[in-house]
């Protein structure tokens, strides 16, 4: 990946990441709580409880999962103590 491609992929990743954070509650209402989701261009392109299945599905769709936002939608009220 060229430096220019990386900058462009990173910009999209940042926008998708922010979109996911801003829309987490809506995703819970839509039944995605407790699932991993893959986001591209501010859209959920796949979801599954098993991240391996999700990644395989994303690859089958011709996407590179390494450059996508793939995150777990924590159930409402989950507190993560780090």
């Amino acid at each position: 990946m060229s430096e220019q491609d990386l900058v462009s992929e990173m910009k999209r990743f940042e926008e998708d990441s922010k979109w996911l954070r801003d829309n987490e509650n809506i995703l819970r209402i839509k039944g995605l709580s407790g699932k991993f989701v893959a986001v591209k261009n501010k859209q959920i392109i796949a979801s599954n409880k098993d991240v391996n299945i999700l990644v395989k599905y994303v690859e089958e769709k011709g996407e590179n999962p390494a450059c996508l936002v793939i995150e777990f939608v924590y159930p409402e009220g989950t507190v993560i103590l780090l």
Partner: protein
Amino acid sequence: MRIPVSVEFFGGGIRPMMDMSIRCEDPKLFGLIRAVIDTGSPTTILGNADVQKMRISQVQMGKLMGEEKEVNLGGAQIRTRILPNVEISVGGSKVIIPVQVPVKVNKGVPPPTILGIDFLVAGKFEFVFNAYKRESYLEKE
């Protein structure tokens, strides 16, 4: 040089979070990742979802170093090994550190990727986090 860090609601509270790219030459790995900066963690640990999305093969897993170590993270019990010489790029700065990679998640909700103290030390970063104003950044001399 100042690198902005976003302050977002995540996992029950506001956290300092960063988008970054990670790259490793041997084994060959690349991915874009969102991480939580955690000054309570001495080391940097990849979240399981981030490991999976980079499609680390069994052969690549064999190149991880050290004994499996048990780590309790965010209520999850995981076993990790070390991936040496990982290049982490944030805001135009590159830092090379060893990173812990989960090889087994025993129980609990999957934890996110954590940027620990080792990242701040290796990058010679000053980390500023004002929770009240929701402002955060890394400053490099």
